């Protein structure tokens, strides 16, 4: 008998707690951002994956070693990496990136490519306006013309650090 009343009382208290939570949500501002009106002030979330890019530094250098792991991991064959074999000044054969093609029309934005990249050479940005009139325009070359691979410091410790850093970042992104 006592349990009957305590059940009702605790039920009412719990319902009121629930209404308090939703009441707080009611007075908190909306997260929706009106698109064409507030186009200039849009604040997409950092984890929003909208377009694959390859960041270049000021001297037009990227980090891509043309290993092709991203293309292998892509579920849709969205990425095509073509590589060139050259001989560097020491006479050693070396593989460099020729073309990094990314077809946004077949990308499912899963993020596997950025997750597996050992160099952290590619990343997703929040630019989402991709509408074009022909499908051929959806295929983009990510490495800029005339760009080359960024020279990394030779010592092994530094090399490891460069390797480890992108992995950590990617794990945080998951």
């Amino acid at each position, binding site marked *: 008998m006592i349990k009957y009343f305590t059940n*009702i009382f605790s039920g009412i208290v719990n319902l009121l707690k629930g*209404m308090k*939570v*939703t009441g707080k*949500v*009611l007075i908190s501002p909306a997260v929706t951002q*009106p698109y064409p009106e507030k186009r200039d002030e849009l604040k997409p979330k950092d984890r929003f994956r909208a377009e694959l890019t390859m960041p270049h530094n000021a001297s037009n250098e990227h980090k891509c070693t043309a290993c092709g792991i991203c293309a292998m991991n892509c579920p849709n064959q969205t990425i095509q990496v073509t590589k060139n074999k050259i001989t560097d000044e020491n006479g050693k054969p070396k593989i460099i990136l020729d073309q990094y093609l990314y077809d946004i029309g077949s990308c499912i934005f899963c993020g596997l490519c950025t997750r597996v990249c050992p160099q952290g050479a590619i990343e997703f940005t929040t630019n989402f306006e991709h509408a074009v009139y022909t499908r051929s325009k959806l295929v983009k070359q990510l490495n800029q013309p005339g760009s080359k691979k960024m020279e990394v410091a030779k010592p092994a410790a530094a090399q490891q650090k460069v390797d480890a850093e992108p992995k950590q970042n990617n794990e945080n992104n998951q």
Partner: protein
Amino acid sequence: MLQLSDIITWIHEFLSANIPAEWAVKLIEYVLVGLGFLTLYALIALFLIIFERKICAYFQCRLGPNRVGPWGIFQVIADMVKILLKEIIPLKHNDKLLYYAAPFIVIMGSLLTFGGLQFAKGVHGVDFNIGVFYLLAVSSISIIGVMLAGWSSNNKYSLIGAMRSGAQVISFELSACLSMMAMVILCGSMNLSDMMESQGRLWFIFQAPIPAFIGMVIYLIAAHAETNRGPFDLPEAESELTAGYHVEYSGITFGFFYVGEYCNLFINAAIGALVFLGGWQPLHFPGCEGFNAVMDYIPSCVWFFGKTLLLIFLSLWVRWSFPRLRIDQLLHLEWKIMLPFSLFNILLMAVLVANGWVF
């Protein structure tokens, strides 16, 4: 100050002065009253639809409709035009007469209730000595329409939805009526005008705070369940029954159910406001003459619609907060918790009134 009743009296005097035959004046007035109620009915449904969509959006951190007109207020007009233009898809192998009659019965039930409400001082359709009884009786007619719709659609989902709706509405009707009866004991009359008059001094919720508050909570829960909304939307459980009893309806026949649902929301809130919160009576406290005089400056229809809107908002808050109940939990809530409490509430109120322990 100009009251709505003054305008009505003015129209009556204008018609009487210009038309000699008394029956013609009455006929014109009946038509005007009917048109007025129908317009109000449609406007309230339209307003409530946009109100609910906006409030529900804010409960989910969204913006809601914002494209058609300022703040999207003309979205409902566009929706209304769309639903009027839609095809009414005829069914084979069903009971045609009952199928097409059901939406009208639902609409009729809520429209009849409109006649019994008091919208402002001296503004009401009918006023007679069993006003509360009439409201309760007529507002449950629409369940017949729901049952007919479910039965005549010749569809399992509709039938299950209608049966659930029937079980739910009939059981919750009990505690809604019993909690009203407590207030009838307090007032000593079922006449809504008498109830309004005795709340002019102090609202019922303040006259006998404890039983009136218990009664109001029970009434609001029961009324909420009767509208088949919120945590009690088993008859429409879209994940199980697609849309319940109106799954086979399309076009304006579906629109009737939709409008009827929103108007029932309004009606339940309005009855709650009339019986517990003083209806169109301003907030008065005996002894504070200055305060009472200030409150009198607010027109009575603003008081009525303000209180109704407050209760509707409460109903929406509940609807967008809680998950759906199971049918056995629902009936447990009614028969084992709310019914004993409302019976006890009547006893408590009777004891208080008999001993004069009310304000």
